[in-house]
């Protein structure tokens, strides 16, 4: 029944689209992120706000009060379906568990763009994200190049089983395989937590007299590992992923070798841009997977700008950033 109504409505909608050239400004974009604790999502939200302001639209932020809470995001979806924003920019707290939520949004006929974590199901008008595998691969390649293709390496993993961790660690391991001189000593979990990474590193230093390189699946753990190395007066090259402010500072001071830029700011910008463009009947890019940038002491400057002062890319730039 719903379906038939949909088919009946379609020509009407198309006619409406043709007769009204572009809808007026002032759309409301509901932006869903996973938590308030990870600085990464703060950059996503600032990017989304920035883009919306540029295009004379508004954002409404939806963030679970309990980090990454599945039931909470689901109930926020229920709220938003009632409130009916013009469009939604959506990061699922769990890429599989939130599929029913996405279907609710689809049923309510609210256009939705998927950002950051690729949802396992549902219909989206666009996907904007970064490639965790290539981030892992490129940062690890950079570390191994710095070490001359050899050395004793440890990996500090994020939350076991999380999509970001699986892909990043797979990238690390593939880079290690390319370098016959590199030896993986251990791959241990730090659960994306600084304290746990610090303790794991302290423990690993006890059983390994020589550690040359540390591959950490995020910046907080990389910084934790550096604290452990400093505490033991030992030196190793450390890389992280995310490009947080803290990581940039550590790269500037020479403590951190590099960080893979996950580019939350651009993800927020581009997700919001695609949502608004589709509302204004402008062409959108169906998929943008941002190319990985390895932030090092040679190229950190553009990343060392406060979030508020950064600017979003234009649509023309967006298509060059990794559009498919």
């Amino acid at each position: 029944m719903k379906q038939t109504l949909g088919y009946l409505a379609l020509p009407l909608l198309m006619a409406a689209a043709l007769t009204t050239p572009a809808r007026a400004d002032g759309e409301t974009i509901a932006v869903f992120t996973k938590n308030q604790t990870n600085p990464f999502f703060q950059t996503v939200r600032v990017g989304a706000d920035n883009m919306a302001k540029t295009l004379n639209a508004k954002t409404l932020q939806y963030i679970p009060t309990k980090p990454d809470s599945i039931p909470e995001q689901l109930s926020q979806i229920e709220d938003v379906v009632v409130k009916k924003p013009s469009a939604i920019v959506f990061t699922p707290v769990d890429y599989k568990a939130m599929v029913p939520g996405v279907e609710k949004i689809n049923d309510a006929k609210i256009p939705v763009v998927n950002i950051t974590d690729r949802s396992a199901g549902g219909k989206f008008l666009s996907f904007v994200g970064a490639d965790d595998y290539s981030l892992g691969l490129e940062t690890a390649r950079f570390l191994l190049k710095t070490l001359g293709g050899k050395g004793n390496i440890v990996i500090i993993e994020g939350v076991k089983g999380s999509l970001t961790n699986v892909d990043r660690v797979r990238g690390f391991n593939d880079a290690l395989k390319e370098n016959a001189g590199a030896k993986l000593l251990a791959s241990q979990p730090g659960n994306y937590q600084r304290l746990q990474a610090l303790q794991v590193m302290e423990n690993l230093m006890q059983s390994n007299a020589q550690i040359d390189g540390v591959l950490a699946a995020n910046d907080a753990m990389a910084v934790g590992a550096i604290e452990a190395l400093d505490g033991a007066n030992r030196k190793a090259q450390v890389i992280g992923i995310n490009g947080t402010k803290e990581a940039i500072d550590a790269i500037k001071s020479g403590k951190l070798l590099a960080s893979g830029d996950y580019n939350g700011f651009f993800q927020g910008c581009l997700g919001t841009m695609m949502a608004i463009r589709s509302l204004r009947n402008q062409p959108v890019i169906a998929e943008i997977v941002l190319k990985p940038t390895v932030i090092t002491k040679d190229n950190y400057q553009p990343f060392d700008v406060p979030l508020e002062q950064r600017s979003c890319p234009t649509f023309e730039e967006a298509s060059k950033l990794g559009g498919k």
Partner: protein
Amino acid sequence: MTDISKEAIAPPRSFLSQDAIQVFYRLLAALLICAVLAVLSDSFLSLGNILNVLRQASLTFFIASGLTLVVLTAGLDLSVGANVALSACIAGTVIHKTGSPALGILTGLACGGMVGLLNGVMVTALRIPSFIATYGMLWVLNGLTYWYMAGETLHGFPAGFRQIGSGYLFGLPIPVYLLLVFLGIGTLFAQRTVWGQEIYAIGANPVAARLSGIPVARRLLLVYAVSGTMAGLASIIFLSRLNSAEADIGESLTLPAIAAVLIGGTSLFGGVGTVFGTFIGALILTLVLNGMNLLSVSANWQPLVTGIIVILAVWLDMKTRRRAQ
């Protein structure tokens, strides 16, 4: 019932009490784990690693020591981890803004203590069960911390301040000295002071405690305030050791602290347990993770093994206690 009230008016505990026997079992378990790890890993028994384990256990112990007193009164403080997070973020801001570590430390302790006191007020004046009051507090604190930090991280503290968590004195990490001091104070307070004995009595039987003239409400207030203040202390050690604070540190600290108390033999039903047992509980938790790191045990097994140890410890505890009675 008569047994419990007898316990409530029992004379001060000697070191050969039932608690002492429980502590002995736990020490034995810790030594057994050490022996196994020493056989499996060459680096386990090195001085460096032993200091390493003690320093790692200290953070859990600081949180868990105050929590032990709460559990001794048959209460629970679920807000300790969230309290550490808020206190660390506030203390960190104060140090950044004023440049004075001393002021930061005082603020951290005061913030932790205030939160504890509020918990105490909810439990005593409003008569909310501690489990619910402190669970609510956990959310309040998370909310405040997330709002306050807005996804930012505080980092970079003065070198002098960093010494508290990362420094050494005569070859021993400074947190290990603090561990010994608070282990001593906690043990003396619980076993040798009237207030300590009253806390045991309240946990064993609150009605009997009240009838025998113990100011139950005031002692409970004290206990929650101490638990909060110890969370405040832990926040300072955390800041100084990690050189940073972020809003989401709390969740990863609460459950290990509760586990340390339980593995240490303090009964959730109150009146039974020791601060020293909690120290061993923290030690066992740390040893297990340290051992799995040294042996490069796959990441998947680590939470599983920890879980099994908590369950085993509590089960063994109930079994031995039943036999003793």
